[in-house]
């Protein structure tokens, strides 16, 4: 039986470098994709991804096993992405209704839903639809599908309540479903 993420992190905090390697191997892909699909370029994703893991390494002694490791790790990633957007001068508004979502950072014009429907490849269209989501909804979707976090864990990682996290996730799924259905028709 493989050790849990929490046990590995505690072992690493105690000086076991191999424990971190195992932990990194488990989570590097999901964390990378979460970061990559939260920003617009691979270069930014690389920078943010490395920064997230560096912060996790520095904060190893402060980790407490009461929190699930993935929640703790994605909390670090969430804060780093927020800092990234703020550095770019983009307002990050954590609103959950459709009306307010228009104020959040949006994807490039090429990823508008109308353009997404024109994409030939379904995966590319889905990727474009994800990129077109408001930040809070996109983040909730990615945390659920990449980090496999529950609504409560998403709420904990993003600093909101569980109901808001569920609402974000529901809106995101509905939009993406609509995008795929439009493509099918």
């Amino acid at each position: 039986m493989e050790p849990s993420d929490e046990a590995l992190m505690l072992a690493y905090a105690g000086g076991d470098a191999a424990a971190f390697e195992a932990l990194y191997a488990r989570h590097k892909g999901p964390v990378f994709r979460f970061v990559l699909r939260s920003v617009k370029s691979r270069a930014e994703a690389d920078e943010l991804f490395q920064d997230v893991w560096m912060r996790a390494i520095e904060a190893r002694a402060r980790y407490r096993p009461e929190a699930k490791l993935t929640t703790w790790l994605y909390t670090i990633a969430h804060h780093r992405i927020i800092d990234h957007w703020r550095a770019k001068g983009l307002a990050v508004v954590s609103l959950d209704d459709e009306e307010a979502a228009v104020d959040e950072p949006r994807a490039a014009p090429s990823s508008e839903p109308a353009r997404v429907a024109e994409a030939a490849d379904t995966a590319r269209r889905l990727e474009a639809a994800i990129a077109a989501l408001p930040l809070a909804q996109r983040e909730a979707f990615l945390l659920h599908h990449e980090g496999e976090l529950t609504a409560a864990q998403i709420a904990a990682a993003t600093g909101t309540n569980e109901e808001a996290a569920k609402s974000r996730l529901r809106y995101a799924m509905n939009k993406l479903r609509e995008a795929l259905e439009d493509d099918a028709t």
Partner: protein
Amino acid sequence: MQPDDEVTRRYRGMAREEPGAAMDAAILAASRRAVAPSLSRRWGAPVSIAAVLVLAFGLTLEMRHEEPGIETSLPAPPAALPEPSNAPATPEPQPAAPAAKDSASGATAQGIAPGKERAAREDKRAAPARKLEKAAQPVEDALHRAPMPEAREAVPPQAPTERAGETPSPFPAAPEGSAAPAASRAAPPKIAAPIVEAPPSAAAALPAPPAAGAAPLRAQDLNAAPAFAPRAKAAAEAMQRAAPAAGPDAALRELERIAGLRAAGRDAEADRALEDFRRNHPGYRIPEAMWERVKPR
């Protein structure tokens, strides 16, 4: 949420991007560096302990090395002054007083080197007055117990300055009155009085503490006579300190009276009289023979 939702299924089918190998290597290297025991962390405590031990050992060695220097500032035990080879003003003892010579030679054997005496004298010049008083106490005690009663009784009162200037020859065993004019002629009464009591052999047998402990006084009083040899200076200084308030005859008479009380078995009275004598003559040097007769029993 629907686990088998079309969106989820399609998302699983998307490209599974991964960080580059260089990124993996950089992060893993950073993770290893963070928990790798550094040289300072591993050897910090042992090196610190070793440094403290070396420092403590060095300080101990240094303190042991400095101990003799510290000791020289303390009052040396009573010992005779060294024999200056060319001291014309010194009332040097000669074979005229064999007993005194024996004691003097014995004391000389325990004496300190002239160079060391000089160093001690210079140290004493800088010492505080309280220390000097303490250092002078053994001098007075030694003067009280100087074993030269015969010479003291035999030698006439004589000012060393006068005799030193007149003749370097040993003192003759002259009657008491014969040298009195000389003393009254030139020497100050305060200095002449104790010197009258001090034969040349006594001067020779003076212990080292007077030279060291009373150096500031000597520097003041004897600067006018630089030709004096160290021993003569010490003798004069010690005699000055030992000068009683009354004349020596009065002191001798009182001692004779105390001796008479002792001989009569009136020890209580003798003790009181001896205490009074000490009070009245605080610096008086009681000859050994007299001390044997008057000391408390």
